[in-house]
Each structure stands twice: as structure tokens, then as C-alpha cells.
């Protein structure tokens, strides 16, 4: 029964504008769910975008670092090939698609690595690629698949086979883009060292 005790106090009229303030607050509260939903959507979008951006930046950074490592390693390899007294230089003129080019092989006889640079080769058809071969006593062994889609020179490094028969020479043929187990297409060059 003490619930009624508030009625023991004489009433006191509120100031005139209080009712308007209450109703305004109520209306604002009724609109608030939409605003909250909109704000939540914005926050989600910003959060999602931020997450995507962070992941992309992380992936790009990883890729950049990887490329930098590979470029540095390639630089070291090139420097070693060029300056090593054990490096043998083989330059092979070639003719592809009616144009004259060259394939240059820096053969590191100590490190058993090759650096191969192709200049002036005709770009491959979409379903074809140049394939480089090691010539051994046991036959041709695939060394690298080198698809060329532009006029730009192409450089690649190769590890020479350490096991099995020694490398006697090199050859290059035009093969399907996925490569072949043995040369079947037109031969670009065939050279015994």
C-alpha cells in the first residue's frame, strides 16, 4: 500500500515546455533504431573495408618482400655468373618466326647452374611455349619451359642435373604450352657444348 504514498505530496505543475521536451525525446528514441541500424551498417562496412584493406596490404607486403628476395638472389646469381672465372659463355644465334635472335647461356661449371637469356625470339602462339632441353648421353631432359608472350627479353636460371649422365649440350624446341616429356615440335637450336 506504500505504492500510493507518493500521492501524499501536494501536486506541483511542471514548467510548460517539459511535456514538449518529453515528447521530443520519445520521438527521437523512436527514430533511434533506424539510426542505430544505419550506424551499425556504416561501422560494419568500415570494419569490413578496413579488414579487407589490412589483409590486402599484408598480402602485398608479403609478395613485395618475396619478390625483393628473389630479385636479390637473381642479382647475386647474375653477378656470380658474370664474374666467376668458371663461367662459360655460349651464344647461339636463332631464327624464329622469320626474325633473328639469340640465346645466351652463362654456364657455371662449378655451381652447376645455367643462366639463360633469350633475345629477339618471336612471341609464342597462345597454346605454345619454348622448351629448353639438356642433351645427355641418355637423351633429352627437360630443363625449362619458357613461354614468351611479348617481345621483351627473357632470363631464367636453371640447376643442372647432378645425378645421371653429364650434360653434353642444349637444345630448344617449340612445344605445347604445358610442356612435353620429349621434344616433338620444331627445333629452335640444337648445340653440343
Amino acid at each position: 500500500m506504500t505504492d500510493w504514498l507518493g500521492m501524499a505530496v501536494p501536486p506541483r505543475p511542471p514548467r510548460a515546455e517539459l511535456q514538449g521536451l518529453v515528447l521530443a525525446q520519445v520521438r527521437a528514441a523512436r527514430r533511434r533504431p533506424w539510426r542505430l541500424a544505419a550506424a551499425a551498417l556504416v561501422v560494419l562496412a568500415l570494419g569490413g573495408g578496413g579488414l579487407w584493406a589490412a589483409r590486402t596490404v599484408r598480402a602485398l607486403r608479403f609478395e613485395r618482400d618475396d619478390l625483393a628476395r628473389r630479385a636479390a638472389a637473381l642479382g647475386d646469381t647474375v653477378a656470380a655468373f658474370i664474374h666467376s672465372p668458371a663461367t662459360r659463355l655460349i651464344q647461339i644465334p636463332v631464327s624464329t618466326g622469320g626474325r633473328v635472335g639469340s640465346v645466351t647461356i652463362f654456364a657455371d661449371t662449378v655451381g652447376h647452374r645455367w643462366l639463360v637469356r633469350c633475345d629477339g625470339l618471336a612471341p609464342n602462339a597462345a597454346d605454345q611455349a619454348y622448351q629448353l632441353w639438356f642433351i645427355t648421353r641418355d637423351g633429352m631432359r627437360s630443363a625449362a619451359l619458357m613461354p614468351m608472350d611479348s617481345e621483351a627479353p627473357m632470363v631464367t636460371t636453371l640447376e643442372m642435373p647432378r645425378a645421371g649422365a653429364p650434360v653434353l649440350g642444349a637444345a630448344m624446341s617449340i612445344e605445347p604450352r604445358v610442356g612435353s616429356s620429349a621434344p616433338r615440335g620444331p627445333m629452335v637450336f640444337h648445340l653440343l657444348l
Partner: protein
Amino acid sequence: MSLPKRLSQEEQGTLVRRLKARDERALGELFDALAPWVVGVAVRILGDVDEAEEVAGDVFVQVWRRIDQHDASRGPLVPWILSIARNRALDALRRRRRWWRKTEQWERGGRGELGVAEQGIALHEAAVPGWPVHREVHAALATLPEEQRRVVVLAYFEGLTHREIARRLAQPLGTVKTRLRSAQAKLTEALSHLKDWIA
């Protein structure tokens, strides 16, 4: 100053239903009918008109938000709203750390009882819905012995615990509890016939 409006019987009967249907005009009508009593309770507790009106505004916003929680089978609407007003006012009192200062002001001003003809404000009886209820409650309190009325006022309007009342009145805790029990029994008997006057 705007005086409270009377509610028609028809309006009174549908007020809660309209509030539950989120009819803002119903809230305006409820405000017209009850705001003077809510402000009165808050002024009595806080002793400050500006704070009391701030509390009253919060009370009606809370009533709007929580009207679905009001269960008519468990009690009338007006005491429910008055209890919200009381709790809010006591919260404000505690929150603003004016508890002791306010109560001391009440003591010095001799307003610790029910002499709450606030600051020259006088409302014409006919203009205020619920005035008969006010008279009955006031009379029920007035019939209590002085020592019982005092503990009721300290508990209800100042939110004191039994232990705090005992300390304030320098009375044993058991005495305070006994007085409160006796007062509550008498009030219950005197006011048991009261019905909600608004819905």
C-alpha cells in the same frame, strides 16, 4: 504555468491501451494528468524544482519505453508510475552526492514531514485529477502516530534503510522495524479501497 487537464472517462479507459499502441498523444494526456504528482514526489525528495522536473521528464520517457511491462493485474498504473518517480528521484539524490546535505536542509527547514506546500505553488483542487486520492492518502498518513509517520516518511521520501533510519532517529533498529510494520498495516487497511483513477 499550465494546469493539469481532466481526462474524460472514455480517454481514461483507453489510455494504457493507446500507450501500448505507441500513441504519442496518449503520452501527452498521461503527462497532463500525472505530471503534477510526479513532479510533486520528485520535489519532495530532491528539494529542487529544476532537478525534479528533469526527473519527471525521465519518468515519462521511461513509462513510454516500459509500458509493456506494466501488468494491470499486479497493480494500478498510477502507483507504478509514482514508484518509478520515487526511484528515479532517489537515484538522482544519491548520484549527485547531495544526500546528507539535502536531508539536513529538510531537517533545518522543518519540512521532514508532509508540509509540502511547495514554494507558493497552489493548485485548485478541481483542476487536478487524483486530488481525492491525495486527500485520502494524506489523511491516512496524518492518522498515524507521529513516530510511525516519521519512519514512513524517512523510508519512502528519503530512501533510508531501516538501519539508517535507526541511526538518524537514534532509535534501536528493532523499534524502527516495528514502527514501520505497524504503519504499513494501518496504511494498508486505510487505503485498501483505492482504485486506479486513471485507467
